[in-house]
């Protein structure tokens, strides 16, 4: 089991020795049980860091933000930035490196193994009638501090589906890692939720999705929280695109309006399916998009579908290796489609 103090010591040490310019991690939020992202820059702040079942966030998003900020200010910091990363988060970092968004030496990965556990889902916790001020790991259980005292629940009961189905709960890419490698643990069958969904017939599924997308308000929270959605301009944006000094008049004139701005069914469907396609071979199932969705659209089903296709058709595992080519930019000699050979 991971001792939180080890993580804090690691962060403190890195900052004391000036090996990194900041550490991206989690701290207790001021307003309740959940952790929230924090960027610390001094050794003294290391004690703020926490590690518990509410560390949902995929912090690699802040590596992207950091990169954008540096590009904007044309700043070359010299030293890397450290990040606390779960198995899934580390895979996201690998994908970003595959895409040359930053270099390996620019990031110091403090890997955190989820071991036999994972993050919880607030909805499932609420269903158990627990209102807690603190949550912590304890072996196969979660332990909560509530007004009625300490409560203990088996983690599997309120763990996120994606954690139950996770195949690699360990950050293979890391500079330092805490916790054991429990790859191969079986909490649930991979893609189990997707499989359950696919048992419905096609007509029923289509109606399901129409209803889901009817609710979408196109707040773009899913896109904003996704570390893979780092494009300066999203192809689905029709009007409010950033125009910089390099943008020519011709480029402006040739801007395509693939999707209308209004949040209606057809446009919403196009948006979400385009996003799913653009995440094929890149989504590492951190499922932050679904967690932040204010209208609870089950986006994981879409992303999982693409992930499973890539896995079954092409043996592709997103975020497996920095040197691997991108899924959509490579093809296999034994591709099942003859026309491509």
């Amino acid at each position, binding site marked *: 089991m991971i001792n939180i103090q080890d993580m804090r010591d690691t962060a403190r040490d890195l900052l004391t020795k000036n090996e990194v310019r900041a550490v991206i991690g989690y701290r207790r939020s001021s307003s309740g049980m959940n952790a929230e992202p924090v960027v610390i820059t001094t050794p003294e702040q290391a004690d703020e860091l926490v590690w518990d079942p509410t560390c949902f966030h995929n912090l690699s998003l802040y590596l992207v933000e950091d990169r954008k900020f540096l590009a904007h200010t044309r700043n070359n910091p010299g030293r890397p930035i450290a990040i606390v990363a779960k198995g899934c988060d580390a895979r996201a970092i690998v994908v970003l490196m595959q*895409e*040359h*968004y930053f270099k390996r030496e620019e990031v110091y990965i403090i890997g955190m193994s989820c071991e036999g556990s994972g993050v919880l889902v607030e909805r499932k916790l609420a269903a158990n009638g627990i209102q807690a001020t603190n949550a912590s790991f304890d072996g196969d259980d979660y332990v909560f501090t509530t007004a009625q005292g300490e409560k203990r629940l088996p983690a599997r009961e309120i763990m996120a589906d994606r954690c139950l189905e996770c195949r690699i709960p360990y950050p293979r890419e890391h500079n330092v890692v805490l916790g054991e490698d429990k790859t191969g643990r079986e909490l649930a069958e991979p893609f189990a939720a997707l499989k359950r969904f696919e048992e419905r017939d096609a007509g029923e599924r289509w109606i399901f999705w129409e209803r889901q997308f009817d609710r979408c308000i196109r707040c773009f929270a899913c896109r904003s929280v996704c570390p893979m959605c*780092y*494009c*300066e*301009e999203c*192809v689905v944006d029709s009007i409010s695109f950033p125009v*910089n000094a*390099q*943008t020519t008049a011709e*480029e402006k*004139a*040739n*801007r*395509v*309006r*693939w999707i209308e701005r209004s949040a209606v069914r057809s446009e919403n469907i196009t948006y979400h399916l385009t996003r799913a396609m*653009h995440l094929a071979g890149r989504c590492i199932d951190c499922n932050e998009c679904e967690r932040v969705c204010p209208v609870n659209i089950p986006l994981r089903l879409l992303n999982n579908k693409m992930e499973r296709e890539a896995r079954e058709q092409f043996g592709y595992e997103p975020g497996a290796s920095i040197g691997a*080519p*991108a899924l*959509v*930019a*490579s093809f296999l*000699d034994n591709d099942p489609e*003859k026309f491509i*050979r």
Partner: protein
Amino acid sequence: MTKKRTGVFVCHCGNNIAATVDVKKVAEVMATEEGVVYSEDYVYMCSDPGQNAVIQSIKDNNLDSVVISCCSPNLHEKTFRDNAKRAGLNSFTCEIANIREQCAWVHKDRNRATEKAIKISRSAVRRAGRDQPLEPIAVPVTRKVLVIGGGIAGIQAALDIANAGLEVILVEKQATIGGHMLQLSETFPTLDCSQCILSPKMVDVSRHPKIKLMTYSEVKEVSGSVGNFRVNILQKPTFVDAELCKICDDCAAVCPVVVPNEFDLGLTARRAIHIPFAQAIPASYTLDESACLGLNPIRCGKCKDVCEVGAINYDMRPQTLIEDVGAIVVATGYDLYGQEHMNELGGGQIDDVLDGLQFERLCSASGATQGHVLRPSDRTVPKEVVFIQCVGSRDPANHCAYCSKICCMYTAKHASLYKHHVPDGRAYVFYIDIRSGGKGYEEFVQRIMEEDEAIYLRGRVSKLYRKDGKIRVLGTDTLTGQNVEIDADMVVLALAMEPSKGTAEIAKTLKIGRDKDGFLAEAHPKLKPVESVTAGIFLAGCAQGPKDIPETVAQAGAAAAKVIGLLSQNTLSHAPTVAFVRNSHCTGCEMCVSACPYNAISLENGKAVVNEVLCEGCGSCSATCLRAAIEVKNATAMQIHEMIEACLA
């Protein structure tokens, strides 16, 4: 969008389009489209009067772009673009709407086909509305040619090209050039000695000042495009200096390793150090590293000790040569479909069941038995020989669907050769039908049947097995309706031809396509039979499909003529419809770099850069890019978007 003045010209293509599509209506509707100032229909737009009418309309109506609604752009895009240019337009503001192959020919309902033709034409109008005038890119040409494969096809192509004054690099995988033709005894229908007619050409190759011969070599990598390919050629070590080797055979005499001789298809044995056959080009021994007892460390070393001229050098290493060439001829030939596939005929496990090439080596004066036809198992003269045609060919259910084309003829030749060697023997030929199209071919087969008294049985053989020292052949004579049993001394299978081993690999290296049977695909089955689908790469010989020697020689000559024509120009014109990068959107993720089949994209300062000479405008990059940062000129996302909109409207 700048206001365009587009003209639409709708072709009837005789009745090809007009029978299914109301072309007048298409022209009428197009006249009302935004940006269209002129529209008409005509019976044959591609005819001289049709083209002249287009020119006249461009001038009369001051058009700045044209859309021709006609057949596939594969056929007449160039015609109409050249025509637009003659009228003073930029040829890249001429677009083709394919209302024949993609509409008239695939539909029956006239109303709906007309509606679709209107949409296709409308989408081309919208595309033309955003077409930029573009100028072709001039590309300098390397006046040097790579020929891959040193069989008769490669030899002929190399000689023809070299005789035109171009430099040629001829690469052959084996230790000698000559290919399968070298293994043949006599050639149909004239029965002249194969080696006797081939070896002068081989000598020509070795002496030709313009031909650089690289045997025991393989093409490993090819980059670049028409006019400017860069190739990596791996030359394997022969461990014998060809300049010094006197072919005295002293080395082979002391070599302790005996392995099957592939030149005689295993009918004889050779040593680890060997020469494929006496007139090999280059005239030198080769040390087969895989058979040798050991070179590192040296385990034997006998050959080196006896070589008086010191030609043997164990320190030779593989060498990679990089060459720049302007064109490539692929003549990688065929192999026989393996006997192991033919389980019903013994699967290669029955003694004295030979394939056609083995029989050639039995008949050849330089072959396994010095030209005496003896059966391999006991070296007796076979008195009853059964020849079976179409083995593995024309059998879509189990083997190859295609006809291997030459087996009827060479089986007749085999029967004839056999009868000449063994006049009192009996030759049976099982056939499905006889395909003897070719000059003197039918007469040849008739002569074998009548004068040489070969017994032709129309039917298939169902089973072969050994019985009492003979091979029992169970077959059917479908003309008499009777089953036939023959106790043969020897059986010769006319096995199907298949693309030579390594064809798949070379096709991938060259990025040229293969057909469903694995042969290299020609660009057009009728009109571009020697061109591959990749510009600057040409095909010759059996790599493209089964063919006999005269056809192979003719095709090699045709490929050579194409190469000579191509390289007679100082510069080549490259289509300017290439990819371009929007730097503001490129994040340098390199997906386009790996998606590009032409290696045309590289990363400079974190942004994608397109090499316009290498780019073929296929759009793979554009389809891969998540950020729409790379697009193809005159096929931009905006244009595609508008075309889709036009189709859906």
